[in-house]
């Protein structure tokens, strides 16, 4: 066993398999959650028959249905670009997963520049969206792709700036290090160390900005202008069908998981919950449970938002990003840095 774990290539293979199996499975869970939660918000029942109980197999059945469908490519499409685009989008979402720590040692790869890598990898998806919009040879797709591009530029900045506050507070960019900084006692009352996640250490503004920006990046309502069903039909997704559409679909939910996991790690203490034991053994068991609970909570908030709000207009979104979120994020950085120096 240890021979396998010590061998770099075997370990790599195991890690790749874990990512490749875990993410799609978890995405199915999130899709099911979305179906059921939205149904109950709209006084419907939602899926009910597939799988026998609560319709739990509905996402699976949908996925299988999509795979059976014909893979249509428009005659005028730029074929290679059209084919690669969904893979790039899915890859971007999967790649982020690499640096999410489930416990102090349960992490695919704890990079020194972890959060930096995550933000960079997360933006790759938009390139795929632009490719999809451009190659479809459809005006609606093109407009959707361009909107996604504009959205990326507007929202990548607040996203990064919101993270900077946490990085300053933690003093590291490694995801493991950021959680460790939240496990460290913030201050002591007598001999009792008060351990709090960063959201309670003054990063509330950062957290809100991060969540809004990540929803914009995932293009979910109220920021779903790139898809905008009632305006652009389905935006860059219009011409996709079958397995390629499934990839986009999976990528959306994988992205929701990745973004929520990063938010949970940066702001909510990651795998650690105040009050739980912090020795390694306990973390191995409790860590994943705690993190996934937090992720599910954040995903619930995203679903809740989606089924409550209408969508913004592109220019309203831009003005919100440039006039509110970016200045707020900058103020947040300045305040955090000042406090860090003073105390």
């Amino acid at each position: 066993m240890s021979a396998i774990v010590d061998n770099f290539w075997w370990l790599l293979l195991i890690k790749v398999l874990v990512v490749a199996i875990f993410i799609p499975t978890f995405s199915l869970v999130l899709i099911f959650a979305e179906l059921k939660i939205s149904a109950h918000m709209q006084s419907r029942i939602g899926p009910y028959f597939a799988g026998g109980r609560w319709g739990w197999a509905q996402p699976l059945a949908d996925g299988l249905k999509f795979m059976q469908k014909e893979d249509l490519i428009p005659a005028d499409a730029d074929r290679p670009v059209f084919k690669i685009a969904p893979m790039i989008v899915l890859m971007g979402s999967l790649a982020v997963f690499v640096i999410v720590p489930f416990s102090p040692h349960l992490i695919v790869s704890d990079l020194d520049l972890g959060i930096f890598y995550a933000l960079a990898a997360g933006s790759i998806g938009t390139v795929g969206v632009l490719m999809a919009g451009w190659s479809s040879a459809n005006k609606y797709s093109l407009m959707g792709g361009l909107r996604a591009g504009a959205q990326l530029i507007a929202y990548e900045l607040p996203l990064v700036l919101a993270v900077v506050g946490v990085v300053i507070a933690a003093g590291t960019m490694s995801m493991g290090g950021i959680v460790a900084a939240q496990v460290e006692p913030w201050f002591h009352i007598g001999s009792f160390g008060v351990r709090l996640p960063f959201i309670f250490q003054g990063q509330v503004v950062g957290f809100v900005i991060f969540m809004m920006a990540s929803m914009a990046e995932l293009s979910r309502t109220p920021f779903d202008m790139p898809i905008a069903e009632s305006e652009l039909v389905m935006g860059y997704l219009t011409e996709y069908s079958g397995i390629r559409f499934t990839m986009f679909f999976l990528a959306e939910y994988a992205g929701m998981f990745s973004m929520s996991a990063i938010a949970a790690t940066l702001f909510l203490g990651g795998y650690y919950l105040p009050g739980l034991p912090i020795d390694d053994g306990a973390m191995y068991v409790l860590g994943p449970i705690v993190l996934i609970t937090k992720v599910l909570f954040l995903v619930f908030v995203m679903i809740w938002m989606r089924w409550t709000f209408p969508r913004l207009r592109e220019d309203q979104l831009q003005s919100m990003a440039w006039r509110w979120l970016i200045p707020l994020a900058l103020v947040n950085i300045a305040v955090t840095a000042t406090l860090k120096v003073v105390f």
Partner: protein
Amino acid sequence: MTDRHLLAMHHAEVSVSVELETPDVTLNLGPQHPSTHGVLRLIAKVDGEVITEVDPVIGYMHRGYEKLAEVRTYPQITALVNRIDWVSGFANEIPFMVAIERLMGLEVPERARYIRLVLTEMARISSHLVFLSSYPLELGAATPLMHALRERERVLDLIEGVTGGRFHPNFNRIGGVKPAAGAGSTQKKVIQDLPEGFLAQTRDAMTNVLSVCDDMEDLVVGNEIFVERTKGVGLIPADRALEFGVSGPNLRASGVGFDIRKTDDYLPYSRFEFDVPVGANGDCFDRYMVRFEEIRQAARIVIQAVDTMPSGELQAKVPRVIKVPKGEVYVRAENPKGEMGYHVVSEGGRGPYRLKIRSASFSNISILPWLLEGQLVPDVIAILGSLDFVLGDVDR
């Protein structure tokens, strides 16, 4: 490499030395598009996301009702006019029936007039509920739809209980209304009236409608994004609205308090108290709010009418074969979508010589080329939705 690519390269070489052109793109919105409620086609020239010119193409839904009416008898036409604006089928029958009755000089029994009025207002409520719920959907909010349609279903159940049909009641008869659903030929002596418990159920349903209106107001109008998307968008000044023949809630949203229910006497509206809601600016938000208030007023009318419902006959004495004396008449009514009118020309036969249908949606969307110019694509969707047209009503 295909010819097309070569041609594109050729063009590229030519234009490189001059400057890069940014030609307008022609965007076909429709006839199959999620936001046009059917088969309206807008040929839009877009510069980026700004519409520079728009050319609506209608007629995909044309069924030729005016011509069809010429070869049918008057009672047969009732089934046709139902299907003009199918969201409020019942309301379409009223002006046609009143027109025939005026030509024939028939006195319609009071009870029949009251039943017509109650069902017309219910049709208005159901039509407006469809609008109030589907409009947020166009702006991206899916949840209000489900809540409003649930209440609408109760209203439709009531309509179905009386008429036997949810969408196409075909319930009016020349000189009154049909004996209610369930009256068979064997029961000729027992004239079936409104179903048992109808009046009480109607009062309940109206209370529910009012409460769902309050919920919707919290959910939709209390939402900053919705307000942001609709306030100041798609402004129609009052004089413009009148020039283009805009009518109904769209006109009242622009500040013109014109309501045919107040001015004409096609149904006994003058006996009930109700207000005519008027908007201030004529933007999408006002058009939305006016319809909100109209539902409340309609519920108010229904409750009053149910409380004072007279008893008596359901239909005036009419001959077995209906022949209308020579003459012509125009009768209009305040339908949920706006002014709906029928100009009937009779040569004295069993069917009309000519039937001209003035439908509200057709006139309402005639303002589109003027209104949509210079708007953003997302605003176009917001404006289209706010005009609340039905393609069957546009094309007829």
